[in-house]
């Protein structure tokens, strides 16, 4: 009972190891059946393009302060209006996407890689290695939500790099735990044992046999986690702990604009909608991916 922890509401459905049929044909077929998932893919692509080409797309310099234009409403010149310093909110939002997506993707990828390696080692070797690594994971997971990242940032100070470090350190444990469970559930299957009997070195067994068969649930969790990380980054920046002033970021935009809630609510509504929109897309993407790769559901329907 204590082995099982539910990180994400729906991760429970991800946890058990199943032989996942990821042949290309089936994948295309499944994606083809789901127009919603295709729309999500397109939107994620669009987001990445917007983030990369922010300097080209944004109509104004996001840092250009112009006090006479402050708190303007929505107009053709300023699609989303202007903020309390007269900066164009549309440009700020686009540049904010750059910051959020960069931090979220980098920290999730590093956490995923590190957590996967640790989880593989702990699950495969067991014994004292497993014991030590698992206790480290338990310890990190004892800090609820953003608390550990918050403590780290309180120690290190604000900054994009510090934010990535803080998020990575507080997130890797979840992947390590999931990967460990996956590896344990397949390491005694026949094909792994035959590989061992055939005298393959551990390194090769892990890389060739365990890793590809255990990784899928972890990848799905990572996709669902991107939205969660974007929310955490925004929350920490909102509190003034994450991103230093001068770098456009949605959470800090809301934090700075909250003084003007009554007089100029656009300052807050625009970045908030941006966060919601992006997180929504990644949540849909993760759920779609889970449905597509989850053979379990088909089995239930057929059986």
């Amino acid at each position, binding site marked *: 009972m204590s082995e099982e922890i539910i990180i994400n509401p729906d991760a429970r459905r991800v946890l058990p190891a199943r032989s996942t049929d990821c042949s290309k044909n089936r994948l295309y077929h499944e994606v083809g059946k789901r127009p919603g998932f295709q729309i999500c893919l397109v939107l994620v692509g669009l987001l990445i393009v917007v983030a990369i080409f922010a300097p080209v797309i944004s109509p104004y310099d996001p840092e250009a302060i112009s006090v006479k234009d402050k708190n303007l409403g929505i107009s053709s010149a300023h699609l989303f209006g202007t903020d309390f310093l007269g900066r164009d909110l549309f440009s700020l939002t686009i540049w904010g996407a750059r910051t959020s997506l960069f931090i979220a993707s980098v920290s999730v990828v590093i956490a995923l890689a590190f957590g996967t390696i640790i989880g593989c080692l702990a699950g495969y070797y067991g014994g004292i290695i497993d014991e030590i690594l698992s206790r480290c994971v338990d310890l990190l997971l004892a*800090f609820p939500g953003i608390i550990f990242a918050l403590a780290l940032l309180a120690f290190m100070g604000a900054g994009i790099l510090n934010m990535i470090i803080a998020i990575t350190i507080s997130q890797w444990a979840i992947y390590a735990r999931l990967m460990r469970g996956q590896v344990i559930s397949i390491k005694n299957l026949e094909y792994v044992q035959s590989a061992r009997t055939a005298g393959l070195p551990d390194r090769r067994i892990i890389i060739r046999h365990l890793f590809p068969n255990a990784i899928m649930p972890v990848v799905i969790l990572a996709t669902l986690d991107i939205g969660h990380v974007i929310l955490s980054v925004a929350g920490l920046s909102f509190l003034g702990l994450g991103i230093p002033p001068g770098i456009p970021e949605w959470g800090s935009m809301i934090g700075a604009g909250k003084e003007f809630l009554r007089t100029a609510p656009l300052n807050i509504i625009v970045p908030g909608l941006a966060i919601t929109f992006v997180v929504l897309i990644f949540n849909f993407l993760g759920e779609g991916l889970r449905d597509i790769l989850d053979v379990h559901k088909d089995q239930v329907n057929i059986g």
Partner: protein
Amino acid sequence: MHHYLIKRFAFLLLTILAASALAYLMLHAVPGETAENVARHTIVGIEDAVSEETKAEISAKYNLNDPIWVQYSNWLSGLIFHGNLGSSYVYKNTSVFTLVSLALGPTIILAIASMLIVIIAGIPLGMYCAVHENRPSDLIIRGATILSISFPSFWLALMLILVFSLTLDWFPVSGYGTPANIVLPAIALSLHPTAVVIRIVRTSMLETLGQQYITFAIAKGLSWGHILWNHAIKNALIPVLTLLGVYFGHLLAGTVIIENIFAWPGIGNLLITSVDARDIPVVTSCIVVIVAMFLIVNFLVDVSYHFIDPRIRYE
């Protein structure tokens, strides 16, 4: 059972201890910085430079030159034997222990109020969705849950203030003391976990309703309400219980931001103002208290399994 409880309890204490060590070491790792902090708060003022002599003086006074584990064990023995968490740099006449214990009450009240909303709204809505699977009402509620999982809670809090305080003037913008004060923060805090609970209850209920004993109960001619409330609900709610424990932790973490917005005088608010002021003793204590509350609630959830589902045995 007793054996299990004792083992589990010892493990709980160990984890709290380890987490407190981690938090302490993390925040006190740079001795020079700690001395500088104390100096800025007690002697020279926040903006001024701190001379090396002052730092050395303070390091000597607060034993900052000791190895970090000695400092930690001093702090820990102070806590265990004297109930003393050290003194705050900012609130000079108040001990950290007083500050934290004053803040604990409001946080627990807010957490309980939010948890009540989660349970009262989440479980019936989840069951409703399961019973009306794939009908329009189910789809609408599920759509709403995905949307609410994607909202940043602090943004929702500000929107609630904008609509219900500034525009409609139904509830106060911020503060603490009257029942009206708790409504908006509790709603902002509970929306996310409520959405998750709805989804889990729905999934779990559908799974339970597909089982043979339910089919048998239907065949026996029992009324639908009777089956739902007497047969299905008990089994369907077991996974929800685990989740309530985990989400209580998220709730605690969420209070950090929500309390800040509503000027709610709880642990989260104390934590953030102390981080801003680099008041490290208070920050450490707040983090340790939050972690301890989270672990204790999960311990209670684990233990209560046995009473809810006697089939579950512990090794």
